[in-house]
């Protein structure tokens, strides 16, 4: 049905708008679909198959992979898989919260700079990323060693024993994960914060709101799309992380990323790897849906 409507001040028909919109979307969407979505769909079919003796895919369809993920493998029931799942969600959640909490002040600080300097500051945030992740992680391993200042400080405070290091530990994993996620949180937040209508914040102050209320009602709703993007760009890669938990956590606490990598690597159990990836994707999709739903309800000025 070809309606006439006014869209962004332009008198147009839906047909014209649709064709124009599709022209814009066509190439990028086709790229993603052909190169990624289609093969992934094919891979997902693998999750119902099994691993043959030589590591190829055997099409004896079964739900064995999913049962295994729930803990039911050849040796009986084990809670290891649920522990892995729990660890993944916990670490990702804490990482996301801490990262966002640090990203907001940083985004504000950058937005306060004179406009000419802002890209410089943004670039400064990105630059540490030009170093390889593994190198940075090894650097953290060095920094958190037992002879270095941070560990000495914590030893002095008697939180840890006299010549213990700060890694491997869950704390070290968090440090590595947060420092790895910050740029991804700051950038989207910044694009919103830069556009923030400070008059509203001022108004909220004038009405005697404390800083928390001002944030919750003045700043948060305006930066919501950026916040959503920041959460997505932090939480999701965290769910799939494997280098940092391995190096800074001593490889003692597998996360889903490690499990998947093992399947596509050492064990060449692609069907099980596909099954775990499917579950991981499913979990993150749920999270995304929740976020987008609340995102849709935010009315933008």
């Amino acid at each position: 049905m070809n309606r006439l409507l006014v869209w962004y001040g332009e008198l147009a028909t839906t047909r014209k708008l649709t064709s124009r919109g599709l022209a814009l979307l066509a190439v990028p969407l086709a790229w993603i679909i052909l190169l990624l979505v289609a093969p992934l769909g094919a891979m997902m079919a693998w999750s119902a198959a099994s691993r043959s003796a030589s590591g190829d895919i055997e099409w004896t369809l079964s739900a064995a992979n999913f049962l295994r993920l729930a803990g039911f493998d050849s040796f009986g029931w084990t809670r290891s898989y649920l522990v892995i799942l729990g660890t993944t969600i916990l670490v990702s959640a804490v990482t996301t919260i801490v990262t966002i909490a640090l990203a907001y002040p940083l985004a504000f600080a950058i937005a306060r700079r004179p406009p000419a300097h802002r890209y410089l500051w943004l670039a400064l945030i990105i630059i540490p990323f030009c170093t390889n992740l593994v190198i940075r992680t090894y650097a953290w391993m060095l920094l958190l060693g037992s002879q270095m200042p941070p560990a000495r400080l914590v030893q002095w405070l008697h939180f840890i024993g006299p010549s213990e290091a700060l890694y491997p530990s869950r704390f070290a994993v968090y440090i590595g994960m947060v420092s790895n996620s910050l740029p991804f949180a700051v950038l989207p937040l910044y694009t919103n914060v830069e556009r923030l209508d400070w008059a509203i914040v001022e108004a909220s102050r004038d009405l005697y709101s404390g800083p928390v209320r001002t944030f919750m009602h003045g700043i948060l709703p305006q930066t919501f799309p950026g916040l959503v993007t920041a959460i997505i760009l932090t939480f999701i890669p965290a769910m799939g992380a494997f280098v940092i938990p391995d190096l800074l956590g001593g490889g003692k606490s597998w996360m889903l990323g490690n499990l998947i990598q093992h399947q596509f690597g050492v064990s060449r159990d692609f069907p099980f790897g596909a099954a775990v990836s499917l579950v991981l994707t499913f979990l993150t999709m749920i999270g995304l849906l929740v976020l987008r739903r609340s995102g849709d309800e935010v009315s933008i000025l």
Partner: protein
Amino acid sequence: MRRSPAGSAVKLRAGAGTNRLHPALSALAVGTLVFLYLPLAAVAGMSLNTARFGAAWKGFSLRWYAQLLNNEVVLHAAANTLVLAAVSTAISTVLGTLLAIGLERFPWPRWMRRIVDGVVYVPVVTPDIVFAVGMLLAFEAARQVLGGLRLGMGTMIAAHVTFQISFVALVVGSRLATLGRSVEEAARDLYAGTWHALRRVTLPLIAPGIVSGAMLAFTLSLDDFVISFFTSGPSSVTLPLYIYGSLRRGITPEIHALSTIVFLVTVALVLGLQVLARNPEKE
């Protein structure tokens, strides 16, 4: 940019908030920045250390840098990395922006938005390894259809663009979402044509988003290992691949020197762009 009501004691400068940041928040921001740079400082420090192993300082030395600059393999890898990042960022920024505009600025029915959203998120959500295997499958299929597709720089660029598009689209999209309709509508009211409105109004408004997205894409490409590995050919080694490959023997100070150089070059590039940008063309 809004003006404060007349008579208010508060003055709003262009682009900056009067909202003075609570000193604690300022300190936190600075602290976070320092936190981000600590590993880099450690790496730079180790690259100047005469010692080959361990953190103990054995004396200042530039020999690792000298050794590095004679290393042809590394230089070739560095060139590959830059080319890969630059080309893939250029392509993906364009495509990602098109995607974001196409999605946000048209009256799609809800179901369609959900689907397109979903497709855009797929590269973001997929774990690296799975992504890489998926790409290999795609290239395999392409080889069946087109015949004679070799793994190399081309396939790596294609793979990088695939995940970069989504990130760019997400960042630009969030910027678009916060923009009100008013400015673009006003442009229309003033008889701006579609193309003109796009070029002169929408694009400048979302420029910070595009640049952020491009920077994100560039960074992701520079640091990528897993996907690059699986889609590269014998002579398309990139720096992350080279560095990761050296880890088996333990990280040498040469690698630290390499990382420090990359860092310094990036800083130089950024400063250079700043100088370029300070040219007359005012935003």
